[in-house]
């Protein structure tokens, strides 16, 4: 009983196997390898993307924090400046008010003085007139009215103590 070696069968089986090799390579191995490569590429891409997103987020976080810090500093500066300006304005207003008050007081004083002078003058004139009248009555028109007035004026001028300086 032989082993069954047979050239035709051998060649047939060899060709069959080679056909299987070709079929599996083109139907199986190549598309699967392509798909696996594609998948690992996709996974790599997603990972990179995730990493980039994370990085971006990290950067944004830092930037936002920076901005917040800057904003806070700016706000503080503005507040400080505002306080300063306010103080200055207050001071200025106070100063101005003080000056104005002084001016008003001064003016009032001057006016008062003026009014007093006026009153004194009026009084004096009235006094003079009354004196003249009285004197006239007393000496009954012995003296020239005009001359008399001048005389009294002179006396008053010399002793002008009623008029305030």
């Amino acid at each position, binding site marked *: *009983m*032989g*082993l*069954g*070696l*047979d050239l*035709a*069968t*051998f060649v*047939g*089986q*060899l060709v*069959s*196997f*080679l*056909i*299987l*090799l070709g*079929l*599996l*390579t083109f*139907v*199986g*191995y190549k*598309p*699967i*390898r392509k*798909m*696996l490569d*594609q*998948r690992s590429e*996709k996974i790599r891409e997603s990972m990179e993307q995730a990493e980039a997103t994370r990085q971006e987020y990290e950067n944004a976080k830092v930037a936002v924090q920076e901005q917040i810090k800057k904003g806070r500093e700016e706000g503080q500066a503005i507040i400080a400046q505002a306080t300063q300006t306010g103080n200055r304005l207050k001071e200025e207003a106070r100063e101005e008010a003080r000056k104005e008050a002084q001016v008003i007081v001064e003016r009032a004083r001057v006016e008062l003085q003026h009014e007093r002078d006026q009153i004194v003058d009026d009084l004096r004139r009235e006094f003079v007139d009354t004196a003249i009248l009285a004197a006239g009555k007393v000496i009954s028109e012995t003296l020239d009215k005009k001359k008399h007035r001048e005389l009294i004026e002179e006396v008053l001028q010399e002793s002008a103590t009623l008029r305030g300086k």
Partner: protein
Amino acid sequence: MAKKAGCGLSLNLLVIIILAGLALVVISFVGGTVGAMIFGGEPMSIFAVHAPAPELPAEHPFAGIPITNTMITAWVSILALTGLFFAGTRKMKVVPGGLQSVVEFIFEVASNFIEDAAGKEKARWFFPVVVTIFLFVVTNAWFSLVPGMESIHLDGAPLFRNANTDINVPLALALVSFIAVEYWGFKAKGGAYIKTFLNFGALGNALVKLFTGKIKAGLSGLFSGFVAAFVGILEILSHLIRILSFTFRLFGNMTAGAILTMIMIFIVPWVIPSIFYGLEAFFGFVQAMIFGGLTLGFACAAVMPEE
């Protein structure tokens, strides 16, 4: 209440199952052909298995047509494998499902195995041949274990027979493996690969020294030169012998397994053959691993750079 004894069964049930199995073994043995010979009388018809008459050459199920049953089985294997991979890769998605995950699983396990041995670059060379050999051998082996497959007879010959038991199939695979290994050797090393087999350089150098008067250096070089040349010849032999060892390892294991199963069915038709079916399934896988693995190993050795 009975305790759980194993396999989730109560002790009583387990004992009953074992006893029933033993009873079937004994009954089928006594009632079978061998039992009838020993105890006299006629074998019971359901146990009357024909005495195994294994044929080493492949049979021709179609009278007058030179197609053997092993060829038909090989074609069925080819169709099954191609169909599996075709169906699995027809509508590939990045997120796999169904058959695609099956073929991708096969691919990835094989790919990792080969990459571990050969490295990423060479793995791409070896992959198709090594994996196809493995898949072809294991599919042939398992297809023949499908119950009833080898019972279909046409023209007095079984229609299907494990293609690995036809010596032409292992021989064809061995030849493919051999040619592929030598091709990869030349591809990796170029013309220098021939030095693995025909290594007369050192011997020539020694002879030149000898004839130019450097007797001492020449003589010592002569010996190592002879050794190198002899190793080359051994290498030629070993590569050629691989074809034979590949062929007869697969052929012998598969044929012996088939005959052993036939004999067991003949002697004890029930229960015991199931055990041998399981063993055969395992051996088919192991033989496929060995064929593919050895091809891979020889390929790695052939492309390994010499220091």
